[in-house]
């Protein structure tokens, strides 16, 4: 049954206007659920929302069902990848619906293909820290609407008036008599009640759940081995495969000797593709052994000689020309020319791999008329579309079973792993689980782009910046991932954090030059555009403070009169960090401030630099104003997580190319920060009534410049290229 049919659309009756109080026309549809009970359908915005805005018709992508047994089931398009979404999103409904959090059950979308028959149109994805931002208002409104209708149904039953009824813990109570009716008993009647004309949301002071540290619903299964990730899928009869893809991007298989591989005990089949070879076996141990026994000669193709330096030089050249104008305020060039002091710098950031702990994998069962996929994806609709294309089937013939995600960070917004699995599955009888080795995962990632930035500022006699000019070059992920999002040479991701700075700057010109690295695939990476831009802008503002011989915090604060929330987080972080207090020789503090993903955040990092130049991050103090906090425990966890992710990038992260090949392969050459290297982290949250901002990525973008600025404070050396190069910090003996 299609959703349109099971939703008896109260709001869609001829002539009935959309309910007032809703921000978007036709945002909510209410009716009877299949099998009885109350069903609400609503549309939540997703990553890449620009494209969706063009959709004329309203198609729900989230559903709330109140079953006759009282269970509240939320079906939503966001996926859990560790960010706590499965706990914080249900809190929004439970708060307004007046049920306990434990009464809300969450289902993956689509949890039941027969019931929900592809409600996923447009771009379905979880990314860009947008889940809570998108859900904040519509889900609370949906919960409140359902509550009002349940109360109306109860009042009718009691022949009473709704004013004399209240709702609590999944029941409606008739206050004068103390009579009670459960939501389950009322759900079917509620579906026939008129949609309320006005929905008033609770004032934050009345929140019972929002703002409390709710226990995460997914935790118990993650401590006893029962949580099921894509890599754990085991459809009956599954075989296990691993693969070697051309080590040079764009290369092809020239010749293959698979005799030794076929002789390995447990190896069933070798699948030769145009640009990859897969070994299919009874288990991954045999598949890996078979892979090692393959003799593959590659035609390396046009990128055989490519190096990182080639790419960096091309980007550097590109910034000498003009780019697409991302922001233009006043006349930066004119004011720069007459400034008392001019400061110029160039910054570079490397390619980065995602290195999710769960290596890329996908299980596929290709049949003549349909294709079944088992995967953990941040973007199921994309997987469906791309698998359909690879399988030569219409999208509705692609069945996807989504799973928990063993780390997303942007990697699982891509469908390349699913496409690979299908290409292999086409040659295999029965389901095949394709698991990439860690080396394949690192060497065939889609990388955070390499960036080159040329930036300058003019200062007046007091050292205040009066002109700001920034031209940067690199890949636009958006242009490939969501082409309508890339317009007139710009997209909102690439420029976030480079424009609309928190500082009061009156002459600004920011330009972007799109340069795609030859053959190297690029993708979103945790904290996306800001992962690059905040490093550059916050390092450079630090340089300006130093050029003006002013304190880094005081210098920033003087530019924040128009941004009180930014000023508040900066002051709080500085105070809590003990800014200005003496540190031992070789140690230093650095600050960074940003407004990205809808949240204000300031960090102070404290580093220690050894005589040999080794950098240790000792302590990080973070102050954040992310608007209303739904689950404070998750906010703290996500900030810690983001900081450690960013510190890994600052200290170790780089993917380099030589002879067209990625030089890193496993965690020995692509290092990840470990427990013994983890700094103490303090998170201070400013209580705010504002709409929630994103939190899953904010910690990452701010920590990189905070560390670089702390290194400057400790050593006087300004690192304009990441990761940290210890040889530049070595002290003479």
């Amino acid at each position, binding site marked *: 049954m299609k959703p349109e049919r099971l939703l008896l659309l109260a709001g869609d009756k001829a002539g009935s206007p959309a309910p007032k109080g809703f921000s978007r026309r036709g945002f909510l549809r209410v009716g009877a659920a299949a099998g009885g009970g109350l069903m609400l359908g609503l549309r939540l915005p997703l990553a890449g929302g620009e494209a969706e805005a063009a959709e004329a018709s309203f198609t729900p992508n989230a559903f709330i069902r109140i079953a006759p047994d009282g269970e509240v089931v939320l079906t939503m398009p966001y996926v859990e990848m*560790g*960010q*706590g979404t499965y706990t914080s999103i249900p809190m929004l409904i439970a708060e307004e619906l007046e049920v306990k959090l434990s009464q809300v059950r969450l289902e993956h979308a689509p949890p039941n293909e027969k019931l929900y028959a592809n409600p996923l149109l447009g771009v379905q994805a979880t990314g860009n820290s947008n889940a809570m931002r998108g859900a904040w208002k519509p889900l609370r409104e949906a919960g409140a609407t359902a509550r009002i209708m349940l109360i109306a149904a109860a009042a009718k039953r009691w022949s009473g008036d709704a004013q004399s009824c209240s709702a609590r813990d999944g029941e409606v109570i008739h206050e004068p008599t103390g009579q009670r009716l459960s939501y389950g008993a009322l759900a079917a009647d509620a579906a026939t009640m008129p949609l309320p004309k006005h929905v008033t949301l609770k004032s934050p002071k009345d929140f019972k759940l929002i703002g409390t540290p709710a*226990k*995460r619903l*997914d*935790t*118990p*299964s*993650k*401590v*006893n*081995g*029962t*949580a*099921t990730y894509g*890599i*754990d899928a*085991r459809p009956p009869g599954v075989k*296990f495969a691993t693969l070697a893809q051309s080590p040079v991007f764009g290369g092809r298989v020239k010749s293959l000797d698979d005799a030794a591989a076929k002789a*390995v*005990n*447990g190896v069933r089949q070798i699948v030769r593709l145009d640009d990859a070879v897969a070994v299919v076996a*009874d*288990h*991954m*141990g*045999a598949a*890996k*052994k078979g892979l090692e026994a393959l003799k593959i000669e590659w035609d390396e193709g046009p990128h055989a000689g490519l190096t990182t330096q080639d790419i960096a030089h091309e980007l550097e050249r590109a910034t000498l020309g003009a780019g697409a104008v991302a922001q233009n305020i006043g006349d930066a060039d004119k004011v720069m020319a007459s400034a008392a002091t001019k400061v110029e710098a160039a910054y570079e950031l490397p390619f980065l791999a995602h290195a*999710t*702990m*769960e*290596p890329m994998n996908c299980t596929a069962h290709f049949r003549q008329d349909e294709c079944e996929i088992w995967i953990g994806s941040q973007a199921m609709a994309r997987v469906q579309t791309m698998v359909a294309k690879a399988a030569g089937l219409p999208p509705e013939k692609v069945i996807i079973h989504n799973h*928990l995600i*063993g*780390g*997303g*960070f942007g990697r699982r917004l891509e469908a390349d792993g699913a496409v690979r699995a299908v290409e292999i599955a086409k040659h295999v009888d029965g389901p095949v689980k394709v698991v990439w*080795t*860690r080396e394949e995962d690192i060497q065939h990632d889609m990388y955070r782009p390499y960036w080159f930035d040329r930036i300058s500022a003019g200062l007046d006699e007091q050292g205040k910046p009066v002109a700001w000019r920034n031209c940067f070059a690199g890949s636009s992920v958006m242009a490939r991932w969501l082409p309508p999002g890339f317009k007139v040479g710009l997209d909102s991701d690439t420029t976030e954090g480079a424009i609309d700075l928190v500082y009061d700057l009156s002459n600004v010109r920011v330009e972007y030059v799109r340069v795609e690295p030859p053959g190297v695939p690029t993708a979103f990476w945790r904290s996306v555009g800001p992962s690059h831009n905040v490093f550059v802008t916050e390092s450079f503002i630090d340089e300006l403070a130093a050029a003006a011989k002013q304190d880094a915090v005081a210098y920033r604060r003087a530019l924040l009169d128009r941004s009180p929330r930014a000023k508040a987080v900066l002051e709080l972080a500085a105070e809590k960090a003990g800014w200005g207090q003496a540190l031992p020789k070789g140690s230093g503090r650095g600050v960074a401030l940003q407004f990205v993903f809808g949240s204000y955040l300031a960090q102070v990092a404290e580093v220690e630099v050894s005589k040999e130049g080794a950098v240790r991050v000792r302590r990080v103090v973070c102050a954040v104003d992310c608007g209303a906090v739904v689950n404070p*425990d998750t906010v703290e*966890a996500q900030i*810690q*997580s*983001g*900081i450690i*992710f960013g510190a*890994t990038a600052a200290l170790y992260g780089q993917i380099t190319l030589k002879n067209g090949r990625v030089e890193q392969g*496993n*965690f*020995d050459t692509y290092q*990840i*920060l*470990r*427990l*013994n*290297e*983890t700094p*103490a982290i303090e998170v201070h949250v400013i209580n705010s009534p504002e709409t929630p901002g994103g939190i899953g990525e904010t910690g990452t973008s701010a920590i990189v410049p905070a560390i670089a600025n702390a290194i400057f404070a400790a050593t006087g050396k300004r690192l304009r290229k990441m990761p940290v190069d210890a040889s530049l910090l070595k002290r003479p003996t």
Partner: protein
Amino acid sequence: MAFTIKVNKKTYSVDVDNDTPLLWVLRDVLGMTGTKFGCGMALCGACTVHIDGVPVRSCITSIDSIGASEITTIEAIGTTPAGARIQKAWVDLEVPQCGYCQSGQIMSAAALLAGNPHPTDADIDDAMSGNICRCGTYLRIRAAIKLAAQSNGPRG
């Protein structure tokens, strides 16, 4: 060739090459998917299991090296006193994020606590730095080990 191994107090017969890593026997042959694959080179600890109570990386432990030893995996670590305390502390402090590495983290932590009821920060560093967590849950891992140690009763 055929091997008989003891996993979580049950005996299993498997027919694989003698150099097959235990990880794939557990996951693919026996279907115990709680033990995770991360690197295949003992660099990340996601595949940690106990062999006679000692934490080992199953991705580099060949099946022919095990003999009659007792293998314990995440599926059964809750039946040991230290494992149960660690799991409870992990839930109490909300340690996991994506959760993928946590089987290995818990196996390393349970082994630490079983052998050292009151580990110091340095002990925790030594025991846990072989386990990578890409979500960066390290601060809560440290706190959870200390919480679990408290439930061992007072020191000394």
